[in-house]
């Protein structure tokens, strides 16, 4: 396939060098920067509980996290400054729009993954993975009543065979069957 997936290739554009930035990217930059500053600040706050090192010549457990967090805050502030200073560009050029349906698909895929992990704990690898495969395939457009279940069960069994028998990695049994 020659055309790359949406939003991957925007050669030449650069967000932090004064070039015009689309409004959505501006908002995203600001939100991400603020979130990261919050994370870094809370990390610094958490280091106040760290004990002093037992070793005489050591700088202690807190030193490096504080340095990293400090640098992270500084860099985020620079990003915020750059973003605010840059002019706003009209809606993204060359970037294919991802519609509501697209984002819904991604969100459903992520939710299904979370559900699969939760289910694996109780019903074990087999059922959780087969259902998960079927759901993701359905999300991706493979909705054939024959192929969808056949592929889901087939791949699940194949992966089980490879991991359990060939590589001797035991897969979760599930607390209900233990």
């Amino acid at each position, binding site marked *: 396939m020659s055309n790359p997936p949406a939003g991957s290739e925007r050669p030449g554009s650069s967000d932090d060098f004064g070039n015009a930035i689309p409004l959505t990217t501006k908002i995203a930059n600001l939100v991400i920067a603020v979130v990261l500053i919050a994370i870094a600040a809370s990390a610094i706050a958490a280091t106040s509980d760290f004990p002093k090192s*037992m*070793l*005489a*010549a050591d700088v202690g457990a807190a030193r490096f996290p504080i340095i990293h967090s400090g640098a992270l805050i500084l860099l985020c502030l620079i990003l915020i400054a750059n973003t605010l200073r840059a002019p706003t560009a009209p809606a993204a050029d060359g970037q294919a729009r991802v519609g509501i349906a697209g984002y819904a698909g991604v969100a459903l895929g992520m939710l299904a993954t979370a559900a699969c992990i939760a289910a694996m704990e109780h019903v074990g690898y087999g059922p959780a993975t087969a259902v998960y495969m079927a759901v993701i395939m359905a999300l991706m457009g493979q909705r054939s009543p024959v192929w969808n279940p056949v592929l889901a069960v087939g791949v699940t069994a194949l992966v089980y065979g490879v991991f359990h028998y060939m590589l*001797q990695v*035991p897969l979760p049994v599930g607390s209900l069957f*233990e």
Partner: protein
Amino acid sequence: MKVTNRLSRRALTVGLSASALIAGAATLPGAAFAADYPTKPIELIVPYAAGGGTDLVARAFADAAKKHLPQPIGVVNKTGGGGAVGLTEIMAARPDGYKIGMGTVEITLLPHMGVARFTVDDFTPIARLNAEPSAITVKADAPWKTFEEFLDNAKANPGKVRIGNSGTGAIWHLAAEALADRTGTTFNHVPFDGANPAVTSLLGGHIEAVSVSPAEVSSQLAAGQLRMLAVMADQRQKAFPDVPTLKEKGIDLSVATWRGIVVPKKTPAAVVETLRTASKAAAEDQSFRDQLAKMNLTWAYADGPEFGQVMQKDNAFFKGMMTKLGMAK
């Protein structure tokens, strides 16, 4: 309980293959379940990474146990937290004997550091398989030929002698701390990410000594690059008969790491019995002893009760030691 005990003994005397048949046929839950143990493969949780010393002991044991149990033992590595993750899993496992664990000396260390949810009393000991003492090893070209010279130098230069260990709070660090405590010296304890990097650093002359086990320095000793001054054991090591013990030097200190099979506390007595019998047979199997010898590991079988005493003794010792050092929480 009497019934289950008799049943289990009968099952064993009838023969292992027969007991497997009975087990397969038996559908009764409860008491009969324990008696027919094991009816399915047993999982052996190893709290350290595949390929490490503990893992190798576990795999050699699982291999040897095949002949003495109707069901195979599968090794599962659950790493993380310096052993805390795997040991917690063993502690929290359903006490039916199908999830057993490789207990290590960390059972008696981690609880005092406040990083574990278990204590030594959460485990029922089955069998100790292996034990390695701590030893003080220096470079072959070091000016100290004997342990006394080494100690005199350390006393004359407090805080200057650097002893490498396998990590702060790990067994070899505590061994060196205990030595400092008993002899009234101060060392500079340098933690490494495991014993191997510490030995590398010693070879490069970046530290003065290491406190790791003889097995971990044996090839460099054989090549004449390192010199072992003393072992922290009650008796001299078979492989190194010329190296004196600390006891001979008038210091009453022996510190050793150990590895052995443990199960969760509430495991039924019949299951514990079966495992103890099988573990004894497997541990005394020549193939197992040969495997350990090849890896330079010391075979140190001890039956459940005796193993339990070692665990309790170490637990008390390390608790006192760590409280003194300010590491205990």
